[in-house]
């Protein structure tokens, strides 16, 4: 049987699903089963459907998604570790009519960049935070993150994270939700088709709020890290539901009345 391609469907076949044009047709560096690729895709679907490719400027962090600009066909800046929201703040101030987002992992956003995160939210900057939380430093090889679960093993918590040495997992989405400058906080995942659809809706809503200048939007995506969790992608998704969701439950944390 001949392999079929979505780019060149047979004449009698209808294309029902394809890569958005705003997502570049290139091989990603992400590990098999990683959630980043899905989040990239959802984001670019939204950019395409809202027809805001020319109006969207993104900021990539230091971490696994450091190369995000290689995949997203929009203008982007690559920030220093933790400073993505400071960079995004400035871009938005210079181009207030553009849509600006900051794409960050948990080490970037909730450890080294905590001050920038809190203050960007507290200023109520009209940007979107896309916060990918997989409870671990992926790029550097699986060290403990501020979001690492208690008891969870990493290369720097080899016998499991303890409160005595490392304190508690930081629920930064709940923290920023307390700030009056933040208009919308919602926690998601991309491990099931339904979860992906929910995230997409939240992104569309966030860009709408940004257009209306209503304040900071903050979307957390609880994601997996099969490589550093040392699991298959399928196992990691099951583990995510069983272990991550109790502490980081999906759902709306803050939304306008």
């Amino acid at each position, binding site marked *: 049987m001949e392999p079929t391609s979505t780019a060149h469907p047979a004449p009698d076949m209808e294309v029902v699903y394809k890569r958005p044009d705003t997502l570049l047709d290139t091989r990603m560096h992400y590990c098999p089963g990683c959630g980043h690729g899905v989040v990239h895709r959802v984001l670019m679907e939204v950019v395409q459907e809202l027809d805001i490719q020319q109006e969207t400027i993104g900021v990539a962090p230091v971490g696994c998604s450091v190369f995000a600009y290689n995949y*997203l066909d*929009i203008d982007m800046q690559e920030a*220093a570790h933790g*400073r993505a929201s400071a960079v995004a703040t400035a871009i938005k101030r*210079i*181009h207030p009519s553009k849509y600006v987002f900051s794409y960050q992992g948990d080490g970037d956003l909730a450890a080294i960049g905590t001050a920038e995160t*809190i203050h960007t939210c507290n200023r109520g900057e009209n940007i979107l935070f896309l916060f990918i939380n997989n409870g671990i430093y992926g790029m550097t090889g699986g060290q403990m993150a501020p979001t690492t679960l208690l008891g969870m093993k990493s290369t720097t918590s080899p016998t499991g994270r303890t409160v005595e040495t490392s304190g508690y997992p930081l629920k930064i989405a709940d923290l920023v939700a307390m700030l009056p400058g933040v208009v919308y906080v919602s926690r998601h995942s991309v491990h099931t088709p339904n979860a992906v659809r929910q995230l997409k809706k939240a992104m569309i809503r966030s860009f709408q709020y940004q257009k209306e200048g209503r304040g900071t939007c903050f979307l957390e995506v609880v994601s997996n890290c099969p490589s550093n969790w040392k699991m298959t992608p399928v196992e990691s998704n099951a583990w995510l539901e069983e272990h991550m969701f109790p502490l980081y439950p999906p759902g709306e944390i803050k939304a306008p009345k």
Partner: protein
Amino acid sequence: MSDIEIMKGNEALAEAAIRAGCRAYFGYPITPQSEILEYLADEGRRRGMIVLQAESEVASINMVYGAAGAGARVMTSSSSPGVSLMMEGISYIASAELPCLLVNVSRGGPGLGTIQPSQGDYFQAVKGGGHGDYRLIVLAPSSVQEMADFVYRAFDLADKYRAPVMILADGALGQMMEKVRFPDYDPAEHVVPKPWATTGKTPDRARNIITSLHIETEQMEQINIRLQDKYRLIAERETRWEEVQTADAEWLIVAYGLAARIAHRAVDLVRARGIRAGLLRPITLFPYPSKPLAALAGRVRGMLTVEMNAGQMVEDVRLAVNGRVPVSFYGRMGGIIPSPDEVVSALQKMVAQDVLTETEAN
């Protein structure tokens, strides 16, 4: 537009930034330069400038990165400890080749140090400070007038070379009041196209990416080669210095910024006592005026470097002179400003040593 005003150095610099068409300022309060932030928060905002008091100098410099990458004429200012905090961001800015103005109204260190004036940040400004092989164009004003004038020059150089430019002043230049005349400068005539900026991808061009990440070593080396070529070009074209009474000088004082004003006075004092001294004042600290110093090394008997530090620029003087004449150093540290009499004594000591050596030789 050209009226003479009496202003603090910090205020003159801030006023010049507004007149130079600086679109955005990001900064954090620190003595002795907070007047820049205060002036811009009031007068700058009133005249349409984006002024954001950031949560730290770390945030400030990364906001400068973002705004410069977005195509805006942008600046920050701070003083020594704050500038130390900015070093990572400055390295990124230099690597991503983003034009911007950085101001260091420096104070005595190390550590939290003192709020009094110092030139202890010469190495940091001129030799790097941040990581990797990069350079800043460094301008060293020595008057309130130059605190203003160098702002225009800094922005134009930054845009011309896609490079960060630093004005390295000190607490005295920031705080002192002097006459200043603002030149006629129409920012519209100085606009440099920035087709590389992240302004939103349009169908007529590929996406613009601002980054300093080049994971392929061959590519990273090429970036480095390009940067070094640029720095060489800057050195060829943009080196600036001032010479005072060097035509017949037997002795040369080398000093920049506030120290150069003191040295100038010392030159007048020793000339009244029959010592033919002159002054070379580097205006650009990078690129450094090595060539005129080398030329003078063939004519003078010795050089005295005067700095408000433990002896930093003196290394560049010695490199330029390359052993052809003796180079002495006189400096005060920790926020102390040397007096002209101290400089005179240091020079007289050098002259006496020279006479002694000559007598011994005979």
